[in-house]
Every structure is written in C-alpha cells, then in structure tokens.
C-alpha cells in the first residue's frame, strides 16, 4: 500500500499532482515544475519531505558505532553540527547517503533516503554487534518540512526563529509555539532550512509557514522541482547517481572524506586506495549541445566507443540548457571541455563536459 504523509490532505487541497515515490504518495507538482523551480531560486519554496527517514542513534558507543559505518570522522563532529556522510559496505559501495547530526553527547540523528530506510536499518543493526548503542527508527513519527530559497531566512525570522544559525547546524527551537528541530541544510543549492516536527503538528506548521511566507513569495514545491533544483546544484540522488556498485570516490564525493581518519570504517581499504589512484569510473557533468535531453540510463560515447551511462538528466530552468550527470571511464582525456556523445533514440548527440555544480550554489551561510 502507498504511504501518505501527514500533509497529504494539504497537497490535495492545493491541487497537487500526486505520484508514487519510494512507496509514498508525494506531490510531484502543484502548478508547474519550471515555475516552482524559479520560485525557489528567486524567492522561497516550501517542501514536504516527510518521506525521508529519521533514525536516532544513542548510547555509550554511539559515536564509535557511527564512525565505523561512514568514511567521515564522527569523532570530530561537534554538538549541534551536521555532516554529509555515506553509508558504505565492505567494498566501499554506497548503501545510502546521509546527514548525521549531533544532538547531544551520546545522541545523534541520521536522516536517510526514503527508498533506502529498510536497507540502512538492516545494515546498521548488523553492524551494531559489540557496540552499546540504541538504533531507534522514528521515521513514522516525524514530518520533515524544507524551506528553501533566498528569502528562507527572512521567512524563518518572521516565524520567530530565536537564534541565528550557520549552515550545517541543528537547533531545537519553537515555531508558533510548537517544538521543532531546525537544521540549516537543504537539497536545492540555495540557503534554507529543514524543520523536523512531530506528525501531529505538521499541518499546523505547514499553514504557518505559508501564511508567514506570503509576503516573501512562498509557494509549495513538488518533487519535480526538487529534482531539477538538486540536479542544477549537482547533488546526488540515491538510486540514480548512487548505488551499491559505486564508491564515494567514483561519485565525486572525495571532498567529503577525511584523508587522515585513523579508525577503521566499512570499505576503508578500497576507498583509501581509490583516493590515491582514482576509481574505475568517475562522475561528470554534461551540458547538451543541442535541444535533446539526456535521461537516466542513456549510453555515453567517447571517440566512438561506449564510455559510460547517464544517471540523471533534465532541462535546467536557470541555464536554459539541458544538463546531466553521467559516469564515464576514468580516462584523463574525458575532462572538463571534452566533447562526448549521448545515445538518444538511436542517434548520437554531442554534449560538453562541464564543471559541477552547474549553477553557483548559495547555501553556505557563516555568522
């Protein structure tokens, strides 16, 4: 059976077109993907991302346990800070990508993808042997709302957000009298917030945000625009751009991996070797040189030979061009500026390898 978030009735009332995503009935668009995309880049958008998983990890060995299951150094994660992580298997393959927050001395919050929650939990429990740790899946009790765009900060201020926050931090707070956890993170390349709220308060909070955001141009935004926004920002989508046969190094995530982490973690040998010598394949950004659109699983050619495959592709509303992410063979010649071809309906179309992200990200906020 398809699951519904606690905001389902709100989406229907707003005229959303609903689609199945990872077993959830989710709004793909309210008016138009392109319009919604521009709203987030120019003003501010509100997203229901309650399908995402929330797992609380606590106990005496919580830090050591998390440190074993991700390449990132959890011993260096400070109170109320967040870090982008990957859950890796013994071969360095990606089980999921996550954000881990430190909520207390012995308490962490792991936000994971809706499509991977079962695999993640299974993997965590299997790896918890010998650790004094409690793995508590609270996904069914929490809703997650994202407020994203250049006006997000003003909107949150209007709602009475009490403290100023840097990017990648999380703080307990109260909005309109209800308890929330506010994180300055997102999946759009814009500045913004993600707000974790108990299900029973999610409709109230949704309405409050739309009400307070009216003067800042807030609109509800569906998963369609969420996908084009994250693609312009070259943020990965699990299942498209990441899978168990791909390592973080191959996925272009080496920047997120500390080179000096002493402790063992799953896949460390493979990942450390690849950090030195590169992976079997590499992720690149493509810009189509004609009007064609490269889509997931289309083949990529270089000098007449198949070199890889498209993982995500769509029009970029901000660039007015069609963009894509692809894996290609780890060949030094296939670098920024090189021309490759994408097979689209049995014809080859030229594409240029361009730098990622495709747009300038504006999500780094320091105080």
């Amino acid at each position, binding site marked *: 059976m398809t699951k519904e978030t606690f905001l389902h009735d709100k989406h229907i009332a707003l005229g959303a077109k609903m689609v199945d995503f990872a077993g959830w009935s989710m709004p793909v668009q309210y008016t138009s*993907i*392109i319009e919604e995309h521009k709203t987030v880049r120019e003003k501010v958008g509100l997203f229901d991302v309650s399908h995402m998983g929330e797992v609380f990890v606590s106990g005496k060995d919580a830090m050591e346990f998390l440190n074993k299951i991700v390449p990132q150094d959890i011993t260096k994660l400070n109170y109320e800070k967040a870090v982008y992580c990957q859950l890796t298997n013994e071969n360095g393959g990606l089980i999921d990508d996550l954000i881990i927050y430190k909520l207390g001395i012995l308490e962490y919050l792991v936000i994971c993808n809706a499509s991977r929650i079962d695999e993640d939990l299974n993997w965590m429990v299997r790896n918890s042997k010998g650790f004094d740790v409690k793995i508590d899946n609270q996904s069914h009790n929490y809703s997650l709302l994202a407020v994203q765009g250049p006006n997000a900060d003003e909107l949150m201020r209007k709602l009475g957000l009490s403290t100023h926050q840097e990017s990648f931090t999380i703080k307990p707070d109260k909005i309109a009298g209800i308890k929330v956890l506010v994180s300055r993170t997102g999946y759009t390349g814009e500045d913004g917030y993600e707000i974790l709220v108990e299900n029973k308060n999610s409709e109230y909070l949704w309405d409050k945000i739309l009400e307070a955001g009216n003067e800042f141009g807030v609109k509800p935004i569906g998963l369609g625009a969420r996908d084009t926004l994250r693609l312009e920002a070259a943020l990965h989508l699990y299942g498209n751009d990441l899978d168990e046969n791909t390592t973080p190094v191959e996925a272009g995530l080496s920047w997120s991996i500390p080179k000096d982490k002493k402790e063992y973690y799953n896949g460390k040998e493979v990942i450390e070797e690849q950090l030195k010598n590169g992976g079997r394949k590499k992720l690149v950004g493509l810009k189509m040189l004609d009007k064609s659109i490269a889509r997931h699983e289309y083949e990529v050619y270089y000098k007449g030979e198949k070199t890889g495959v498209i993982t995500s592709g769509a029009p970029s509303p901000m660039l007015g061009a069609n963009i894509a992410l692809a894996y290609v063979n780890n060949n030094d010649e296939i670098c920024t500026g090189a021309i490759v071809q994408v097979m689209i309906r049995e014809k080859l179309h030229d594409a240029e390898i361009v730098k990622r992200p495709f747009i300038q990200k504006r999500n780094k906020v320091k105080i």
Partner: protein
Amino acid sequence: MIMPENLLCSKSHEYVSDNGNNTFTIGLTDYAVEQLGDIVFLELPEVGSEFKKGDTFATVESVKAASEIYMPVSGKIIETNEAAVETPEILNEDCFEKGWLVKIEPTGNLETEQADLLEYEDYKEELE
C-alpha cells in the same frame, strides 16, 4: 478549425481531427498535455514518411521524462508543426489550434482503424 466535438481520441491520448479534404490533423489531447506538465522538447517525423496505426511517430518530453506518441491511424505525413518543435510550450497553452503535431493523408482503412477510437466526450468520460 479543430473542434473538440469533432475529434476522435485514442486510449494513448492522441487525437485525430478530420480536415474534410482527405487530410487529418493529429495531436495530443488536453488531458495528455496536462498530465505531462511543462513540455520542453518535441521531435516530429519528416514530411513524406509513413507510419502504421500504433507506430511511434514522435517523441514529447516534459521536464521529468520522455514519452512516445503513437499513430492513431495509418498515414503519410504531409505537414509538421514546426512552431511546436521550436516552442514546445505551446502544447501546454493550446494543444488543438496552435499545438497540433502533424497532418496526414490516411493510408489505411479508416473505418476499421477508427473502430477503437473514442469521440471526445466519451474519451473524457472514460478518464473519470
């Protein structure tokens, strides 16, 4: 003039409109374009090419995905809507007058080929 009441529609959401001079206009129904959302790319066949009923003759892409378009009746392409190829968003604005796709001369037995097509009103009812 394409009048919805004169259309025949396929289950895969193409319409056929009789132009009266043994030519027909083919397009996507208003339901189809609404379901697709923002249309950003359209690929039409060459004038002169021939297709059988059910063949893929064109491709339309929304922001999210590419979809094939099938011939509702067999025919030879005699005209394509270049304005729609140039600015595919006109399909979202008006899929009948401005956003039609191709004009054809039928090459099959129209009577039998139209048997599984629905009149616009019945097509709309079927969708509910």
